Structures are given as structure tokens and as C-alpha cells.
């Protein structure tokens, strides 16, 4: 029926002829929609609201403060019983709608009650996603969606004990915070490696994790729940896929929400992830509308409150005959955990044509990142200092051109919009007084920095080495750069090459600071050293992985995703995407069993080529990544391990036959070669590392073009370093001569460790020695009589963790995901 509104208004007595609007859902969306309609035309509809919960409408997003004890339920009520009465709205609370009958235009409640409608509004919101693990239905497993859930959590918290929250998103962290304030010991189990990965990038996620841990919560990332455990009919813990078990008196499932579409689907309305609506929130049935978290609009589903207000406006405009249209929302998020400031808005993923402006202040624990596209802000992530969040969000929503304030943008509104001079960072620094402190770590004033520059330090590096300003944490680097520019103009010299474009630090700085500041993870290095990109690049990630591995043997966990493919798959990628496999042959010696195993592999996997390498090994070509573990299993069975022919690592020890067979041989060069290879195999290096041992000065093993070479003579062993037979041929520098095999081994270990600890990543020994000078190398090894012993001891300690055949672990099933396909798509027509 279509009663004309004006007629209705003119004849109050015909009020019963008002159109009938039925709302399913007494939540924030349903009630807000009704409020918006009433504000536009209070007399147009006769309204009935069905709610599943037996209470009035409350502010669901404030449940976290209720859990944390910062608010009471009464404080979060949005619409009181009087509101329903005053507006003539019939509230059917606690009797949920069972189904919609579109043919008869009625809804049927669980009690059997039938309610006819002219317009129907579905505002069923969303429901918590429960991961399908055994034990999910146990008493003590709750979701975090409504007041009943909060009451269950509060009851559990009364007894103290342990809480496990599955899910490290916004809701999960707020639940863990609340439970921990209520006296429980809270553990967050999060599947992804970064907390709140939908709102935060890795850098901000890492800061958040560190802070929550400092507050006593246990945060397990990359943790996959396998089962919820039971004792005496109640939950008692959670078991992870890696076997770890965590005790729990309550388990909160907060892994996410999904649109509640059951009623709509059953009624035959078009749904994808959510109920499909047009720009006026109308579903595929013109009499039925939908709003809030249950809808999908232009491919988007929303789980936040702000889009809901905008949807309700468009819906009310449409239902009162002044259609405006909803075009989608840009959203922002704030974490409601007291004392932790986190803000995220818009698109923080970035893209080709996007620019990142990053500012990190390690001392204050601040990370700010603003993402620009065409001089307009499209996203922002802030941690530790969110004061400017609303300013950025405002600029984002208004799509304002920020090119005029771009230089000062990241410092916030006060700085960027400040009076005159302060919009230019250089001018701001110029305005500082001479005794203003520039470098807090080393207590260096502006006057001192300027004096140092005037005394001849014309590069950042020179300033750092001469007065130490910005040489420690580096957070004042931009201030020192401004002072260089102000003092010298164009005369600033570009300093040593930085590690990559993501940082202003050199390789040497980074290596030193990793040790000084005890940095032990890649995201930590990036935060503390003010990386300008969120997660680095293909140059710095492998370098940092190596530096950390070298600095903290046995402690640092190798990051596979920062490894070049060859080191990740333990084989050499070839131009056609297949791999070559080189088993280790100690000192270049082999035997019939090994050769048979190699021959069998070649035939079994139909390897198109087998080749003898320059390093006295056998290379099997054309192996597919999925066959690698099986190939390795076969080679392992014959006693062979990885030859590391693919790594920035010890490659081969090449030998000649020496005194055992050769009529010129002076010492057992093969025997020593095998001993050296047994000592050094498996070690990761800045670059590949080759060794050779020749039995006499005829040097058949070509030891004088190797990274470390031994030439045996009657009276002992001549040791040579820094040779290279590759792109740029370089003969070795003689290092020293020793009398015994033991000394030769000790010097080899010491030299390798010096190279490992000092060289830049991807720097072979030849350019390293050219850069440092052979005299420097000799001084490091021989000035202190204990130096060789100490370096060798550090190498041997590190080797304790390295000499573990990676092939054997993979053959046994480790990281099968790296070798297998997700699946194979076979189009149905293949079988037709």
C-alpha cells in the first residue's frame, strides 16, 4: 500500500494508514536508521523493531571499556525504554525473527508472531567467526560480541587464572587488555605474524607487541590453534599446531566477524559476503533494505561504526523520498587500550604510484607513516603519537592537495601549518639557539655541530665521526643534515654509501649498532635505526638477516622470507626455473657409493645434464622444486649432505692429491683440505667463500686465487687470503706461514670470522681486503697475540649452530610449503 504522506499528516485519524516499517535488529545500525528517519519525517512510518537480545539498544563498541571496568552498562545505553515509547516504536526484544516471507510481506518471529511490512529493514549486523577447531563448543569458550559475552568473561575473571584470546585484531587485543586489568593472566594467540595486520603495518605492529609484552601479556604471533582442550567438561587450555599447550580458564574467540546474512539468504535475497545493496541501501527486493555490518556495498563490507552513520543517512533520505545515495566510506581505527596510542586510516598498503613518508623516533617509541598519492593523503598509520591522526584523516577525506606543506607534513599540524619559518624544516633548525641540543644520545649542541662542520666536516659521516652527533640512534640525522645544508649550502659532500635506499646508515653503522643496541630482529633494527620504508627492500632484508645471524649465533632465528631463493630452497635456480643440486664431497674426494647414488638420482629424475664443477664437485641440473626433498633424501641415504653451492657461504675446499700420491707433494693436502672443510662447512658468510689446499708450490689446486688458500711447503704451510678467480682476477696476499696443521686450521677459522664480522654483505674477500688493506687484516690478527684464538673460538661457537644439514631437515618434511604447489587447476574440459 502507498498512503501519501501529506494526506496522512493532514488526517491524523488515518494514522493507521501509515506505511509499516519493520526493522530486524535492535543494534546500532537499526536504531540509528530509525532515528534518521524520524528526524526527517516522524509521521511517515509505523515502526516495529525486533531485537534478539532482551534489552534496549546500547553502544556495542563501548563493550571493551565495560570489560575493562572503565564504564558501566548504563553508561553505554544509547536508546532508553522511554525513547521507544516516546516515538511510538514497538520493541520486540528477545524474540528474534525466524524467517521472512516475501510473498506475504511478513516476518515471522521465533514465538510464531507474524508481523506484516510495507518496508523491511534488515540490520542484523555481523556474527563472530568461530574457527572450526575441536573443542570450540566447550563451556568456557566465548566470543566477544554482546553484553552476555562480557558477563561470561567477567564471571571467569572473578576467579583470576588464565585467559587465552584467539585473535590479535582490534577486538582480541581489547578483550585481552580488559581481562588482564581484571586480574587474569592473558595470552593472545594470533595466526598472523603481526598484530592488527588489517590496520597496522609490520613496524607499528611490532611496537604494539613490544608494549603489550612489557605490560605482562603474552603475545604469540604466527600461532595456529589446533584444538581447544577440555578437563571435567570445561575448557582447560589451547593446543597450537606446533604442539605448545597454553592453560586457560576461559578462551575468547575474537578472530573476526562476518556479515549475518542467514535471514536474507533464506529469503532468496542476493548475497555475496554480505547482503548486496545499491547506493540507497536497497536489496535485490525493492521493498527490503539493509544497513550496517550485514551489507556488502560496492564490494565492501564494513566492521566499523563510522560507515554505518553514513549508510543510515542515505537510507533515511531514500525512505523519506529525498534520495541522496551512499558512495562508500573511508575508515579510520583507534585501539581502545588505555595508554597505547594507535591510529590507522585509509589505505596503508601503498602502491606503485604511492609515496611513503616515514618518521621514526626510537627514543619516544613513535612511528608515523603517511601515504600520499598525487600529493594527496590516502592513508596514515601512527603509533605512540596519534595527536595528528584526526588532522591527517581530515586531509584524507577532503582529498586536499598537500604539496605546499609536504616537507613538514610528517611532523604534524602544529609544525606544518606553523607560522612562516617553521613550514621549512631547515628554517626551523636555523631558528634554534646555539646551545640547543641536537643529539641527545651524545649530548651535542647545535653550536658544536656547526663548529665541527666549519672545521672541515663536510659530510654526514664526517660529522658523525668527529663530534658523534647522530652517530648513535640516528634519530637526529635530519637535524644534522639540515645544519650541513645551512652551513655549507651546496658544499655538502655525499658521504659513504648507505646500506640501501631505506636507511641513511652505512653497512658499518648498521653492524655496529646491532651490537651496541643489542638489536635482535629485523623489525627492531628497522624501528631503532629509523628505516624510511615499512618493511625494507630486497637489498636490505638479506643483509640484515645475515648481520643478525652473524651477531647473535644460536639466538637469532633465520628469516626465510629475507633469504634469496637459492638459500631458501638450498639449490641453485636456473634460467628455466628448475634447480641444480651439488652434494658436498669433502675436499673433492668421492667413492663408488656416492657416485652410484648420484647416477641413480640423475636417472630417476631424468636430469638433463650432469657436470663437474670448477670446485671439484658434481652438479646435477634440471631438478624441479617439488622433487628437491626426494632428491636430497636419496643423496642423504648415501651419506652426502648439502654442498652449499647456492649460498653466501663456505662453498668448497679444493685440493690436490699431495704427499699421499704425488711425487712432488710435501704435505697431506687432501687430508688438510678435508679437515678444513669439516670445520668450515655450513657457515653463512657475507658472500660466497672458496678455499683450496695445494700440496706443493706448483699449486695445482690454484690456492692463490681463493678467499683462503694454503700452499704446503717442506717446512709447513703458507697461508694466503683475498684471492679471486672471477670477474676481476686477483691473486692472494700472503698472510703468514705456520708450522702445523692445527695452526693452519686455527688461522683459517680466525680469518673467516674476521671477514664474517667486518665485511659488508655481498662483499667478497678480495674487494674487502682492497678496501681495508692487508696491513689492517694482519694487525687485527697478529697485534694482539690472543686475537687469532679469540676469533677462532667465536667461529667455532657459531658453527655449533650451523653444521646441521639443511637437506636432511627438508627431506624429513620441514617447510614442505616451500616445495609443493598449492594445488593444480585442471579445467573440467580436460575430462570431457
Amino acid at each position, binding site marked *: 500500500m502507498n498512503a501519501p504522506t501529506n494526506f496522512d499528516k493532514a488526517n491524523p485519524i488515518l494514522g493507521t494508514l501509515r506505511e509499516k516499517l519493520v526493522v530486524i535488529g535492535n543494534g546500532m545500525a537499526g536504531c540509528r536508521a530509525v532515528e534518521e528517519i524520524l528526524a526527517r519525517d516522524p509521521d511517515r512510518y509505523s515502526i516495529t523493531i525486533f531485537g534478539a537480545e532482551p534489552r534496549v539498544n546500547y553502544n556495542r563498541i563501548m563493550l571493551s571499556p565495560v570489560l575493562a571496568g572503565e564504564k558501566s552498562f548504563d553508561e553505554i545505553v544509547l536508546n532508553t525504554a522511554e525513547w521507544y515509547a516516546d516515538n511510538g516504536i514497538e520493541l520486540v526484544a528477545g524474540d528474534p525473527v525466524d524467517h521472512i516471507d516475501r510473498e506475504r510481506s511478513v516476518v515471522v518471529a521465533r514465538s510464531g508472531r507474524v508481523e506484516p511490512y510495507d518496508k523491511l529493514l534488515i540490520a542484523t549486523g555481523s556474527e563472530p567467526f568461530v574457527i572450526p577447531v575441536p573443542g570450540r563448543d566447550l563451556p568456557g569458550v566465548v566470543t566477544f560480541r554482546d553484553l552476555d559475552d562480557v558477563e561470561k568473561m567477567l564471571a571467569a575473571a572473578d576467579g583470576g587464572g588464565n585467559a587465552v584470546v584467539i585473535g590479535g585484531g582490534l577486538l582480541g587485543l581489547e578483550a585481552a587488555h580488559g581481562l588482564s586489568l581484571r586480574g587474569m593472566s592473558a595470552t593472545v594467540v594470533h595466526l598472523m605474524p603481526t598484530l592488527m595486520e588489517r590496520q597496522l603495518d609490520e613496524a607499528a605492529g611490532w611496537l604494539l607487541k613490544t608494549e603489550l609484552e612489557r605490560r605482562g601479556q603474552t603475545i604469540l604471533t604466527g600461532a595456529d590453534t589446533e584444538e581447544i582442550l577440555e578437563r571435567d567438561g570445561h575448557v582447560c587450555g589451547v593446543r597450537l599446531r606446533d604442539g605448545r599447550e597454553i592453560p586457560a580458564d576461559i578462551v575468547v574467540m575474537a578472530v573476526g566477524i562476518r556479515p549475518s546474512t542467514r535471514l536474507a539468504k533464506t529469503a532468496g535475497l542476493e548475497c555475496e559476503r554480505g547482503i548486496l545493496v545499491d547506493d540507497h541501501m536497497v536489496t535485490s527486493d525493492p521493498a527490503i533494505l539493509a544497513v550496517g555490518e550485514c551489507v556488502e556495498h560496492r564490494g565492501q563490507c564494513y566492521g566499523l561504526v563510522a560507515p554505518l552513520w553514513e549508510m543510515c543517512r542515505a537510507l533515511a533520505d531514500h525512505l523519506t523520498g529525498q534520495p541522496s545515495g551512499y558512495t562508500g566510506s573511508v575508515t579510520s581505527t583507534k585501539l581502545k587500550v588505555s595508554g597505547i596510542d594507535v591510529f590507522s586510516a585509509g589505505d596503508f598498503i601503498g602502491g606503485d604510484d604511492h609515496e611513503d613518508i616515514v618518521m621514526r623516533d626510537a627514543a619516544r617509541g613513535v612511528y608515523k607513516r603517511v601515504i600520499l598519492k598525487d600529493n594527496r593523503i590516502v592513508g596514515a598509520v601512527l603509533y605512540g603519537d596519534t595527536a595528528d591522526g584526526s588532522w591527517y584523516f581530515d586531509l584524507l577525506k577532503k582529498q586536499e592537495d598537500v604539496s605546499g606543506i609536504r616537507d613538514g607534513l610528517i611532523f604534524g599540524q602544529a609544525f606544518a601549518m606553523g607560522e612562516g619559518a617553521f613550514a621549512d624544516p631547515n628554517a626551523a633548525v636555523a631558528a634554534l639557539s646555539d646551545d640547543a641540543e641536537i643529539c641527545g644520545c651524545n649530548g651535542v649542541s647545535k653550536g658544536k655541530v656547526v663548529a665541527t662542520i666549519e672545521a672541515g666536516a663536510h659530510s654526514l659521516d664526517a660529522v658523525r665521526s668527529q663530534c658523534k652527533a647522530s652517530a648513535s640512534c640516528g634519530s637526529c640525522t635530519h637535524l644534522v643534515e639540515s645544519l650541513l645544508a645551512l652551513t655549507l649550502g651546496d658544499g655538502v659532500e655525499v658521504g659513504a654509501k648507505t646500506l640501501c635506499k631505506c636507511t641513511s646508515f652505512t653497512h658499518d653503522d648498521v653492524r655496529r649498532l646491532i651490537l651496541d643496541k643489542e638489536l635482535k630482529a629485523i623489525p627492531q633494527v628497522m624501528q631503532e635505526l629509523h628505516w624510511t620504508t615499512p618493511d625494507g*627492500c630486497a637489498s636490505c632484508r638479506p643483509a640484515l638477516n645475515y648481520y643478525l645471524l652473524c651477531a647473535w649465533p644460536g639466538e637469532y632465528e633465520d628469516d626465510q622470507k629475507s633469504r634469496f631463493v637459492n638459500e631458501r630452497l638450498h639449490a641453485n635456480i636456473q634460467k628455466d626455473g628448475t634447480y641444480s643440486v651439488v652434494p658436498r664431497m669433502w675436499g673433492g674426494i668421492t667413492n663408488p657409493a656416492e657416485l652410484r647414488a648420484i647416477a641413480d638420482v640423475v636417472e630417476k629424475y631424468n636430469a638433463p645434464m650432469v657436470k663437474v664443477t670448477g670446485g671439484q664437485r658434481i652438479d646435477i641440473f634440471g631438478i624441479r622444486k617439488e622433487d628437491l626433498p626426494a632428491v636430497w633424501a636419496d643423496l642423504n641415504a648415501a651419506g652426502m649432505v648439502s654442498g652449499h653451492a647456492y649460498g653466501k657461504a663456505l662453498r668448497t675446499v679444493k685440493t690436490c692429491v699431495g704427499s699421499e700420491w704425488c711425487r712432488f707433494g710435501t704435505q697431506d693436502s687432501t687430508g688438510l683440505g678435508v679437515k678444513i672443510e669439516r670445520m668450515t662447512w655450513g657457515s653463512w658468510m657475507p658472500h660466497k667463500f672458496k678455499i683450496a689446499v695445494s700440496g706443493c708450490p706448483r699449486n695445482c689446486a690454484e690456492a692463490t686465487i681463493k678467499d683462503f688458500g694454503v700452499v704446503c711447503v717442506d717446512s709447513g704451510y703458507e697461508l694466503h687470503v683475498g684471492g679471486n678467480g672471477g670477474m676481476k682476477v686477483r691473486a692472494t696476499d700472503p698472510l703468514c706461514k705456520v708450522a702445523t696443521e692445527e695452526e693452519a686450521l686455527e688461522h683459517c677459522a680466525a680469518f673467516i670470522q674476521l671477514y664474517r664480522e667486518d665485511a659488508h654483505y655481498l662483499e667478497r674477500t678480495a674487494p674487502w681486503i682492497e678496501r681495508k688493506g692487508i696491513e689492517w687484516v694482519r694487525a687485527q690478527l697478529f697485534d694482539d697475540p690472543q686475537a687469532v684464538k679469540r676469533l677462532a673460538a667465536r667461529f667455532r661457537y657459531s658453527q655449533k649452530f650451523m653444521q646441521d644439514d639443511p637437506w636432511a631437515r627438508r627431506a624429513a618434511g620441514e617447510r614442505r610449503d616451500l616445495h609443493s604447489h598449492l594445488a593444480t587447476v585442471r579445467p573440467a574440459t580436460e575430462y570431457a
Partner: protein
Amino acid sequence: MMQAKWLDIGPVTQIEPGMAATLPVIGGEEIAVFHTMRGEFYALVNKCPHKQGPLSQGIVHGDSVTCPLHNWKISLRSGQALGDDVGCVPTIPVKVDAGRIYLLREAVVPPPPAQQARAA
């Protein structure tokens, strides 16, 4: 037979963030599915526009991947080569729903040979 618009290729957990996995397609191009450190999923034909290197094996950083053969940097969003290099690899639309990864079926499965023949 009616087919869904999206092809379910399994749970999000099968690809660690910062990594990629491969999906061979019989009669079509192998697909590389990427999971970035920031939690986004992308899919590209697994061939660098330069010398057909397997992009799935490259280092993933931000929303790009560096090809393992010659270090070309490819945008995961657009498939375009970045920097001074010129080239483009086809992308496949991806969506994630309730913890599972879906690829747009029509971008994955080539049209049946019979239909191609008829069309020709």
C-alpha cells in the same frame, strides 16, 4: 553446469606472510599467489616479463616482488615492472573471505579448447 565466479584455493594459512605459493594450471599459465608482510594477497602469472623468471621465488617487500633471476622489481598490484624497466605481467583478481583465498575463475581457467576452436 553452473560454476561459481570465484575459485577457492584454500586457507590463508597455507602461505606465510612475505612468501608466495604456486598454482599450476593445466592448459594455462602457472599462477603465483603472494601474501605480503602487510597481510594482503595478490596473484600474478608466475613469469617475469623480462626472461620469464619464476616471480613466486622472489623476495617480497612492500607490495612488490624482486625477480630471482635478474632483480627486476614487479608491482604485485599492477604487474608492471618498476623503476627503469619496462614490462608487465598479467594479474589475477583475488579476494579473501572467512580465512580462505579465492581467485577470479575466469582469469585462472582458460576457455575450453572446443569453444576456442568454434570461435575461430
